[in-house]
């Protein structure tokens, strides 16, 4: 791990700005999710634009020359075009002219899956320097009038630069997926239905919130424990817990169940950024670093989970 970079869209959206659209209130949103505000991208902040900005910041910290980057992986669920993938454009725009580039999709677990992919590429020798970037414009695919999702999701990007090292700084993932539950977080319709239905509404995200909540607070505790076991450490060894920022109440429950000692910083970036799907984990780590809540060399437990239903846990050494 050689660098972290993020992009936070300019526009800040408060609960009161959107509550009336879902017959809700600031208090209801705060109690239900912990979210106080989030950011929405404008027309000049595309998925690629935000990813490029996050990558450039991460590259700057790493000190690596972009031409020496071998692999660029974008995790996103919100590329509006079927093809090409956006990673190629991002690689070109950041000057990674010698890199292979492609997108992966695992929704809210996308960044964690992508981190495992680039880590493997480096361990295998396929790449010496790599970037994993998560970038999302969730607002393009969420209905502002859906009470179950409108207040949760938002936009942003975050990136890690990963380089070859003598030491293991990214543990092997504990990951999985259960496709039998994929209708708990999915789109209201697919593209062909949208095209073929008369006067069809644009496809939007829908979620069985209470079912997903229960799944997350029951399953992710065990996944986190297995991730620590696989990395050969215990909760006392951690400096930070950086879960996907789905909902602060999920974070609360997992943190309480795992009994973290007081020195473990708990990432709560979602309070100010909402759920940015594949971008939450780098954004949340960035905030902990900026606030001095973690320091270089600390161990952080990352935990991605969401649509699929998919999940991935890893332990990293904070750069």
């Amino acid at each position, binding site marked *: 791990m050689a660098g972290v970079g993020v992009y936070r869209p300019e526009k800040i959206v408060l609960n009161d700005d959107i509550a009336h659209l879902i017959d809700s209130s600031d208090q209801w949103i705060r109690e239900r999710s912990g979210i106080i505000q989030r950011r929405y991208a404008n027309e000049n902040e595309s998925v690629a634009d935000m990813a490029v900005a996050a990558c450039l910041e991460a590259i700057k910290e790493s000190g690596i020359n972009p031409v020496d980057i071998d692999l660029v992986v974008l995790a996103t669920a919100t590329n509006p075009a079927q093809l090409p993938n956006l990673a190629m454009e991002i690689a070109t725009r950041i000057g990674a002219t010698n890199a292979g580039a492609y997108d992966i999709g695992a929704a809210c677990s996308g960044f964690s899956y992508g981190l495992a992919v680039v880590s493997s590429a480096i361990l295998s020798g396929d790449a010496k320097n790599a970037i994993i970037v998560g970038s999302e414009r969730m607002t393009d695919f969420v209905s502002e009038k859906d009470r179950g999702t409108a207040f949760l999701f938002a936009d942003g990007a975050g990136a890690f630069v990963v380089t070859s090292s003598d030491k293991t700084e990214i543990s092997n993932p504990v990951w999985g997926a259960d496709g039998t539950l994929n209708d708990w977080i999915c789109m209201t319709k697919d593209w062909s239905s949208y095209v073929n239905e008369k006067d069809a509404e644009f496809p939007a995200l829908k979620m069985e*919130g*209470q*079912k997903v*909540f*229960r799944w997350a*607070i029951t399953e992710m505790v065990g996944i986190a424990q297995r991730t620590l076991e696989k990395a050969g450490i215990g909760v006392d060894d951690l400096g930070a817990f950086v879960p996907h920022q789905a909902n602060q*109440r999920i974070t609360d429950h997992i943190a309480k169940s795992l009994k973290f000692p007081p020195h473990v910083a708990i990432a709560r970036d979602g309070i100010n950024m909402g759920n940015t799907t594949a971008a939450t984990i780098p954004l949340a780590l960035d905030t902990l670093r900026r606030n001095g809540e973690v320091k270089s060399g600390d161990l952080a437990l990352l935990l991605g989970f969401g649509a699929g239903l998919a999940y991935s846990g890893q332990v990293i050494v904070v750069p």
Partner: protein
Amino acid sequence: MTDEQIVSELAVILNEVAGVDQSKVSADKSFLDDLEVDSLSMVEVVMAAEDKFGVKIPDEEVKNLRTVGDAVAFIKKSA
């Protein structure tokens, strides 16, 4: 277990999960309106109750459990 014992155990769970004052918990109280237990807290209460009483409370049943008394009746029926 008697009804009173189940109410008492539920009060402990409601306090631990949702910070409800145990003295306010009685059979006639509504989870949402009287005890201010929202839907996500209700998920946690149900999970804790399942562990405590050794019962399974299906998702479709949870919405029928409006009051503490409803929950007591379901737990007695299922145990």
